[in-house]
């Protein structure tokens, strides 16, 4: 194969902030599945060059408005509490992240996933698949209509139950912004025993995964409203600017 050296003189690229202590340690023994899957050797620092400061900017053509309503994908309505989940996708500098794909998946109201590996003896709902997607708008906003997922048992430890949650996947606009996480509901009594939620070292960062109930978003006689903002890594300079702002 030919490998010609491109003749481009030195140039400057943006780089993205590197949050320390934000994400859960990969080796989190309380979550047993990490035991054979979390890498053991130290990660190697990768400076941000061209491949890292870019990312897939996929077109709206991949998504239809109907994809954002998980309650209208079948002939009938799913069982459960109808909810609206909405918020903004922002970067660490507070700027909106527009035109990027958000994908969600979740259990049904009984805490059962429409997936062959889920053998929790709770009923499937023929009117609920549990998957949705949307693009953020020019202000970074997203909005899903769905039903509130149920809690469900798992085998991590005796009498283990996952708090109710919706899985969220964000492509972001550059490789460092790629994020998959889970959104939780306020006041869930299961937080204290959940090793996945508690794998996040900073309790304040955990709280940022909990949506806020909002009566203003709640639609009378129709659906409860929850607001949840998601904040992806921003350009590295914003961290410096903000530190200066606070002096």
């Amino acid at each position, binding site marked *: 194969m030919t*490998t010609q050296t*491109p003749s481009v003189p030195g140039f400057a690229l943006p780089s993205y902030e590197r949050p320390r202590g934000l994400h859960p340690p990969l080796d989190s023994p309380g979550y047993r599945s990490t035991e054979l899957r979390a890498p053991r050797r130290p990660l190697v620092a990768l400076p941000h060059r*061209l491949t890292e400061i870019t990312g897939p900017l996929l077109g709206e053509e991949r998504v239809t408005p109907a994809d954002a309503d998980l309650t209208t994908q079948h002939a009938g309505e799913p069982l459960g509490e109808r909810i609206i989940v909405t918020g903004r996708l922002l970067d660490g500098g507070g700027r909106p992240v527009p035109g990027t794909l958000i994908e969600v998946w979740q259990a049904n109201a009984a805490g059962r996933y429409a997936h062959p590996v*889920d053998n929790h003896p709770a009923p499937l709902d023929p009117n609920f698949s549990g998957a949705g997607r949307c693009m953020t708008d020019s202000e970074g906003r997203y909005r899903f209509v769905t039903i509130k997922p149920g809690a469900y048992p798992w085998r991590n430890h005796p009498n283990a139950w996952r708090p109710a949650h919706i899985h969220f*996947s964000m492509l972001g606009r550059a*490789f460092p912004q790629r994020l998959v996480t889970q959104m939780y509901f306020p006041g869930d009594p299961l937080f204290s025993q959940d090793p996945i939620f508690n794998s996040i070292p900073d309790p304040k960062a955990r709280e940022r*995964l909990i949506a806020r109930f909002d009566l203003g978003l709640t639609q009378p006689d129709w659906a409860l409203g929850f607001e949840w903002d998601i904040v992806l890594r921003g350009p590295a300079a914003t961290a410096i600017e903000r530190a200066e702002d606070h002096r």
Partner: protein
Amino acid sequence: MTAGLTPSQTVGPFLAIGLPWLDGPFVVPEGTPGAVEITGRLVDGAGVPVPDGMIETWQADPDGRFTHPDDPRGAPEPAGTPFRGFGRCMTGPDGGYRIVTLRPGPLPSPDGGTEAPHLDVSVFARGLLARVVTRIYFSDEPEANESDPVLASIPEAGRSATLIAQADPERAGVFRFDIHLQGERETVFFDV
């Protein structure tokens, strides 16, 4: 730590409900002239295949260009064939994945060097509380790999070999790249 950023959580075991795309593995349509296949297995520390993982790839086009506003070289020439730059493949029961793509070109590095052709890779799975990131290089680019700044930065001798996809001697255009999450042959993962 920057205040306010959203922390990661695992994709869990049921990612296949929400994340597969029918065209995910095809960065270019199958049968595109010059297309290569990158294939391999995702395995855990016991050597057991990971059947509930997801591999994503991101790369330059064959000219080393990105369709992205932050590439200071501007937009690439419109390509004759659709090229997404992004690939996504769920792992199968044998931990296997495949990505059909065009070989990326080499890239100028801001410090004046040249990066060998490569793909950035994100790995997601139950048991991974955050994605892990690696890179795929090509075994038939020995000279470019030799002068690549990222391969050169890997501290332990020999470990950079875990980042080199091996050309299949029997199938032209097929490269083999296994990802070992742990163990003797643990793949190099990056803090990106």
